[in-house]
């Protein structure tokens, strides 16, 4: 029974961490846009993700971490790929994303259906667990 209680506490802790990560990204994106560092306002949100990229920790209907350009200058393809690569090269962030149940990283423009996506499991190696 204690295990169940601990599992429930873990689940709530995980959800809090997920929303905290999204909130921190949005806050940093907003501050960067307002202070003029970033030409485009970036927003992070949770999406369904790609079912082909699922792994052991994937959250049901919440496996996608989408970064979307909200306003300002639209992003071109190279910029979207660059943003994706910067996030994927941050190993701590990728490991955290994987551990918190995300499986797909998506970078989208503010208009249309243009976007790029990457499977996170290809860029994280948590003790060889995922490979």
């Amino acid at each position, binding site marked *: 029974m*204690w*295990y169940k209680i*601990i599992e429930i506490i873990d689940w709530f802790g*995980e959800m809090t*961490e997920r929303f905290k*990560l999204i909130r*921190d*990204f949005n*806050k*940093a*994106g907003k*501050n*960067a846009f307002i202070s003029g*560092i*970033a*030409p485009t306002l*970036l927003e992070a949100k949770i999406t369904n993700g790609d079912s082909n990229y699922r792994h052991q*920790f994937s959250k049901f209907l919440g496996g996608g971490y989408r970064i979307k350009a909200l306003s300002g200058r639209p992003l071109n393809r190279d910029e979207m790929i*660059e*943003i994706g*690569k*910067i*996030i994927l*090269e*941050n190993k*701590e*962030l990728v*490991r*955290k994303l*994987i*551990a*918190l149940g995300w499986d797909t990283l998506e970078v989208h423009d503010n208009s249309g259906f243009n976007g790029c996506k990457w499977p996170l499991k290809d860029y994280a190696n*948590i*003790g060889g*667990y995922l490979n």
Partner: protein
Amino acid sequence: MHLLQIAIKDTMPQSNLIEKIDAHSINIWTYIAIVEFLIIILLVIYLFYLKRRQTVSKFEKEICEAKNTDIDMDDLMLSINKSRELYKELSRKCHPDKHINSEFQKEIEVLFQEITKNKRNFQELVKLKDIAINKYNIKMN
């Protein structure tokens, strides 16, 4: 007989007092017992929790650590927006071909490799820029 009656009268209020004190003390001891019982339950839960933490595997520990890592999002934003320009500047100024016959040629080659390795990490690029300016006297804009 009269003396005995007086003695009984004198002892009656005292016996009532003792009963009252006893009843009150029983209540206090009951509360103390309940509190002790709760403390014991909490300690047992804590022991179970500790035992579980000891038995978790290495991978689970790594996952827990990964979950609790703090990510500096401001640094990430700077990397997204500023690292490209800084990398271009550094790679131009610290290119080994520009320092062929200088005294720091080998060190600058290593520095250039580090710059290429951290091309998308703004904080690291700033540190490398400081090294280039202070250690190798490379002029930056």
